[in-house]
């Protein structure tokens, strides 16, 4: 079975999704979703342990060899992303049960889990495949299911924000498919490795730079790079809490992965950074993203929206790492993929707990929660410290590598601006903490601690935030390996 792990990773959830929809029992479809995500985690770990040393798994779908058939190709880069997606899903799905029961109408819950599993399938599929058109197919699967998930939010504005996301996301997907089409016209192939061999011959045509430009814009939309992030805050704010936790921790990460894969594997770092000089666009945009959206986050009254803007800023850190186009920079970016998933997952889950008990996530609604929901708010504090980058949390590890990469590139002012971003995070996180711990609670609203079924997944993520902040051996090893593969450096 382990030979078929790459395809089983995707096929098992793909089959589970319609079953969850057909069963129409809340508990059973939730169990199926749990099973699918845990399977994915098992498979992801299996794949990662096989490619950790630098090997590559190539799997021919249906026995049709590449480049004729679809190839699933796993190396340290995508095994890493797959692990992130699967790990977050395995924690978010158990968490979803209580939260979704409260926030989604009961006759839609099984459909909800069906869309949830489909979204997971799409994200895993994008990551595992070695075929660019297959990327597009899975991208649509994950995006369409994500639109559906977001539209199930309680607030009526969930519908408009899902619609907004649909429009922006579809434009992004269209740009991507145009780029893929142009490459196909010029080379006649869709296999990534095949493309990387054939592209150099046609690099100096007009079509390939155009394809590159379309793809860059498409990916930037999907990963919410400033200023193409406008769909994100609404989508994250009005989606059901569990959906926000899941999507915020995974969807943008996979989009970053797509960008990395196309830039470094398909086009090659030399074309992307020396010929097209994409770093000249990415670096300033990343810095503006970090500073401007952190500033916007400071002024939010709704904590989910605050965290959403913070996400855009954090994506800036990842893209900043990518734009340095060095092993150190990519390592920092890839580390932050994982680390940010852990911290944002924990923070959004904590807000889901507050939503569950208080029914609002506005800052004023947090008054006195430090006493009434001590575990939830303590989790928020740890997650927040991680966002700030306090030592002994994962956020610090990301900062350490990112700043070091910027200094190694001689960009001391970039390093300084990264620190400024951290300080802005102090402000927006501490606004919430201050209200929760220092403001008196309104009397007699009977708010109690969130149910254990939500607290346990939340604290699993919190513990991971600390564990991988103190012992980052595994994460740095895999991220460095992945960065070396992308840069074509063999160690």
């Amino acid at each position, binding site marked *: 079975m382990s030979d078929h792990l790459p395809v089983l990773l995707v096929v098992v959830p793909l089959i589970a999704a319609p079953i969850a929809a057909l069963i129409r029992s809340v508990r059973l479809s939730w169990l199926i979703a749990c099973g699918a995500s845990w399977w994915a985690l098992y498979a992801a770990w299996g794949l990662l342990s096989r490619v950790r040393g630098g090997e590559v798994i190539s799997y021919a779908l249906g026995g049709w060899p590449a480049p004729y058939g679809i190839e699933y190709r796993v190396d340290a880069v995508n095994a890493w992303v797959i692990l992130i997606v699967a790990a977050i899903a395995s924690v978010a799905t158990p968490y979803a049960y209580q939260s979704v029961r409260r926030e989604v109408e009961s006759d839609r819950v099984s459909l909800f889990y069906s869309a949830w599993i489909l979204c997971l399938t799409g994200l895993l599929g994008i990551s595992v495949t070695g075929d660019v058109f297959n990327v597009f197919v899975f991208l649509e699967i994950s995006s369409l299911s994500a639109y559906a998930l977001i539209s199930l939010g309680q607030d009526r504005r969930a519908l408009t924000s899902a619609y907004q996301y649909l429009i922006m996301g579809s434009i992004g997907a269209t740009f991507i498919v145009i780029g893929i089409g142009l490459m196909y016209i010029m080379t006649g192939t869709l296999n990534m490795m095949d493309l990387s061999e054939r592209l150099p011959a046609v690099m100096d045509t007009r079509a390939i730079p155009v394809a590159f430009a379309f793809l860059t814009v498409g990916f930037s939309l999907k990963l919410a790079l400033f200023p193409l992030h406008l769909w994100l805050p609404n989508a994250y704010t009005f989606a059901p809490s569990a959906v926000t936790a899941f999507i915020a921790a995974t969807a943008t990460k996979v989009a970053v992965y797509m960008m990395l894969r196309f830039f470094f594997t398909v086009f090659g770092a030399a074309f992307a950074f020396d010929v097209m000089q994409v770093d000249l666009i990415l670096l300033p945009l990343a810095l503006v993203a970090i500073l401007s959206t952190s500033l916007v986050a400071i002024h939010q009254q709704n904590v989910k929206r605050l965290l959403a803007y913070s996400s855009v800023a954090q994506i800036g850190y990842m893209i900043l790492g990518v734009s340095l186009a060095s092993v150190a920079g990519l390592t920092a970016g890839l580390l932050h993929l994982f680390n940010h998933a852990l911290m944002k997952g924990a923070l959004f889950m904590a807000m889901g707990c507050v939503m569950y008990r208080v029914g609002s996530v506005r800052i004023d609604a947090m008054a006195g929660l430090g006493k009434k929901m001590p575990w939830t708010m303590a989790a928020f504090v740890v997650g927040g*410290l991680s966002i*700030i*980058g*306090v*030592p*002994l949390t994962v956020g610090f*590890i990301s*900062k*350490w*590598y990112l*700043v*070091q990469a910027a*200094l*190694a590139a001689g960009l*001391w002012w970039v*390093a*300084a601006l990264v*620190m*400024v971003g*951290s*300080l802005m995070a*102090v402000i927006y996180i*501490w606004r919430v903490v*201050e209200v929760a*711990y*220092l403001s*008196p609670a309104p009397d007699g609203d009977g708010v109690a601690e969130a149910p254990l079924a939500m607290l346990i997944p939340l604290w699993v993520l919190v513990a991971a935030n600390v564990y991988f*902040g*103190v*012992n*980052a*051996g595994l994460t*740095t*090893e895999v991220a460095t390996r992945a960065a070396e593969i992308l840069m074509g450096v063999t160690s």
Partner: protein
Amino acid sequence: MSPVTVILAAVLLPVLAAGLVLFLGRWPNLREAVPIATGTALFAMIYSLMDVVRSGEVVRYSLIEVVPGVDLALHIEPLGVLFALVASFLWPVTTLYAVGYMRGHHEENQTRFFTFFAISIGAAMGVAFSANLFTLFAFYEVLTLCTFPLVTHHQTEEARNAGRIYLGILLTTSIAFQLLAIIWAWQVAGTVDFVRGGFLEGTASPLVLNVLLVLFVFGVGKAAVMPFHRWLPAAMVAPTPVSALLHAVAVVKAGVFTVLKVAVYVFGLDLMGELAVTPWLAWTAAATILIGSLVAFTKDNLKARLAYSTISQLSYIVLGAMLANAYGIIGGGMHIAMHAFGKITLFFAAGAIMVAAHEKKISRMHGLGRTMPFTFGAFFIGSLSIIGVPPAGGSWSKWYLGMGTMEAGQVGLLAVLMVSSLLGLVYLLEVPIRAFFSPPPPDSRRPDDVHEAPLPVLIAIGITATATVALFVNPGPFHELMTLLVTP
């Protein structure tokens, strides 16, 4: 106990004590006995490390490798033992004081208070024994964060603002400057491990090294070098035992400790002496010394006056480090201890006056000395130590600092030290002189039954005042440790 066990226990014991305090919250006497007992044991354990330091044995213990090449690690060296001795001695004394103060003042949330107090001590121990810049920074930030609930203890609007300034300045300086400097040092040197004599020499251009030194000095916000000093007066809103913790036991001392440690173990005195920016930083410290003293003059609120006095005194230590010679380092290191004992006596006395007579303003303390002779007597002794005259311990550290300025050929700096001492003479001694020699003001609505503060408070004041004098007679371990630090 092996030395490694001692340093691990030094960090863990206070944290365990914090857990126990939380658990025993319902029984106040038992709850407060825990930190007093733990602190006493801790001091005894750390004192046993003196032999290790004397033998010159290298003790380093790595807890875990966080990222390749950087580990969370502890080690034993003279400066750290000095800081740990001071903190572990003053922790049980401050707890004893807090028992009287918090009960006498009817403070709320006392369990939370004692819990975070104990965790702060654990963090301070971590700072003292950290073996590299990463570990130091980690514990430094933990110390910042777990003192936040103490500073905002009253949960009022004023406390909230103080908390903002406190966190704002300490986190801003530490993240924007100090962390940047640490990562930069790691980037150029490939190591962050403390090495006697420093590890930066020859690793980067003089420009970068100058920038790094500036980033380190201003990045240690806890050393309160101007213009990053505002958090100290702001934090005065906290209960007085917290002020004692901030000013004497842990927080500011962790700051100046870091500056000294960076001077000796990151740059090394030779490199410090060569850098063009070092004299400038020495003069910045000198400016802080003078301005701090002058501002202290203008404050009528006793705690605020003491806060500015602290700002001024901390820069003595920073100045000592920037003199880049052995006398400066000895003086700076000893001043950590001497200032701690002197200043904690002053704060204890200020708190006792608040509890017993409900007076905060110096202008309203006329005649109080007659009813509270013990408290004001102790205040007098503490003042002498801060000013630096016999028979108080502060004379020794000031002596060495003065020698350091001469050695560095900076007569101007010596003059600054003298002037500041004279200013201290006036603004500190005003308090006991008013209390003892002026009659109570005629309009005083002071109740007739003012008497000395509760017994635990008086015992604590007695201990620290006695220690202040004893350190003049015999500066003992502190002098020895600092000599060991600078002799190669």
